[in-house]
């Protein structure tokens, strides 16, 4: 780990944004990505390490006017304990349930998982399917300003996001899915815990008069970023989830993913997983 010249622990969002405005800063929250990546030399720490864990404005889960606001510091354990998350945005809850281990869920934050921007990040796939937005705070000319970026535009490459160095992720906003929306998250790994996803899928829809409406599908670990699968959605929209439709959706999915071969799986195996597990997830959604 390279040396840290200054350690800061701001207590307000305003103070944190001010520190970001004035220097080259690494943001620290739960530490579960920053620490091992810095130790392994995969992350070069900036001269200033800013621990945002004491910034009260970055916590809390609340719903207002049909939008759930989840503070960036919310841990996986806190998400799992939230009845609002479990009952209204269950896709995210399911992903938290598959996340790492108890020790890591107690420390890791939603904001950290989003800003780490791994193509395989567990919460990113349901967040894309839930049409979540990133709320970014900065102080460009001395006043605290907020900007919203849809997560579909937020991830720009492996570990890269649309967040500027002067911005802090304050919260994730999720519009409540429509009444009747049911979703399923699927993650494939060699073991249930502490595994980086080989592939992951978040799929959801409403069922109206026997057909799927408002279909949303997102994939993880099959492209340089987690991705919303628009062509797969189109193959399912307005159709009954029968065998022919599911087969067409699987073909559409295979055409729009770009998996690589790495230590976890070959690109061929990832394609097979996406084809088969998408069919399974959508047939479950069709029955919910």
């Amino acid at each position, binding site marked *: 780990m390279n040396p*840290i010249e200054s350690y800061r622990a701001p207590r307000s969002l305003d103070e944190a944004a001010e520190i970001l405005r004035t220097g080259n800063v690494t943001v620290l929250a739960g530490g579960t990505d920053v620490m091992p990546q810095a130790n392994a030399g995969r992350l070069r720490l900036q001269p200033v390490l800013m621990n945002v864990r004491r910034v009260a404005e970055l916590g809390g889960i609340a719903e207002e006017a049909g939008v759930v606001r989840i503070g960036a510091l919310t841990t996986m354990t806190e998400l799992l304990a939230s009845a609002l998350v479990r009952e209204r945005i269950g896709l995210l809850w399911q992903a938290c349930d598959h996340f790492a281990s108890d020790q890591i869920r107690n420390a890791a934050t939603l904001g950290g998982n989003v800003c780490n921007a791994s193509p395989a990040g567990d919460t990113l796939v349901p967040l894309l399917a839930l049409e979540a937005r990133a709320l970014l705070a900065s102080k460009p000319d001395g006043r605290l300003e907020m900007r919203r970026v849809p997560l579909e535009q937020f991830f720009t490459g492996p570990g890269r996001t649309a967040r500027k160095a002067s911005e802090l992720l304050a919260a994730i906003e999720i519009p409540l899915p429509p009444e009747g929306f049911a979703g399923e998250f699927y993650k494939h790994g060699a073991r249930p815990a502490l595994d980086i996803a080989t592939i992951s899928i978040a799929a959801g829809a409403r069922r109206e008069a026997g057909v799927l409406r408002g279909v949303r599908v997102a994939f993880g670990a099959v492209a340089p970023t987690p991705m919303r699968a628009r062509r797969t959605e189109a193959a399912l929209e307005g159709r009954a989830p029968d065998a022919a439709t599911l087969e067409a959706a699987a073909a559409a999915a295979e055409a729009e993913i770009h998996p690589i071969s790495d230590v976890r799986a070959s690109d061929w195996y990832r394609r097979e997983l996406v084809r088969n597990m998408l069919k399974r997830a959508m047939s479950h959604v069709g029955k919910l």
Partner: protein
Amino acid sequence: MSANCEIEFTLNGVRRRLTVPAQMSTLEMLRERLGLRGTKYACGEGECGACTILVDGATQNSCLMFAADCDGRDLVTVEGVAASGLGERLRDAFVANGAVQCGFCTPGLMVQASHLIEQHPGADEATIRRGIEGNLCRCTGYRKIIDAIHEAAKAKAHE
């Protein structure tokens, strides 16, 4: 030149004040600065759970936590757990069930098991398996560890 941080926290019920380098991990602080060698260093990246401690009542991998982040928090290590009633019960159950072989994972498992039982008194086997997912043991095959934790959980539920 690396920055230093003044921190103040509670460790096993005792108030501590310390100056630590900004890049030091909590694990290194516990072992090398405070001489508490019960907490083990193994993988150093949050995969094995040998360094598990309690932070504000929830378990974390101390290898993934910056020592500077201990400021204002309440830490309990395996030394603190061992001194509690539940810790004694767990230790007895681990011994009685032969749940210790090389012993390297044992402190982390004791801390994780104590947290698990506090959260779920009378936990069943599925809950125990799920609760110790973040702790690796390369000797026992887990059966005896699960039995030991189950025994301690049952005893706790009947308290």
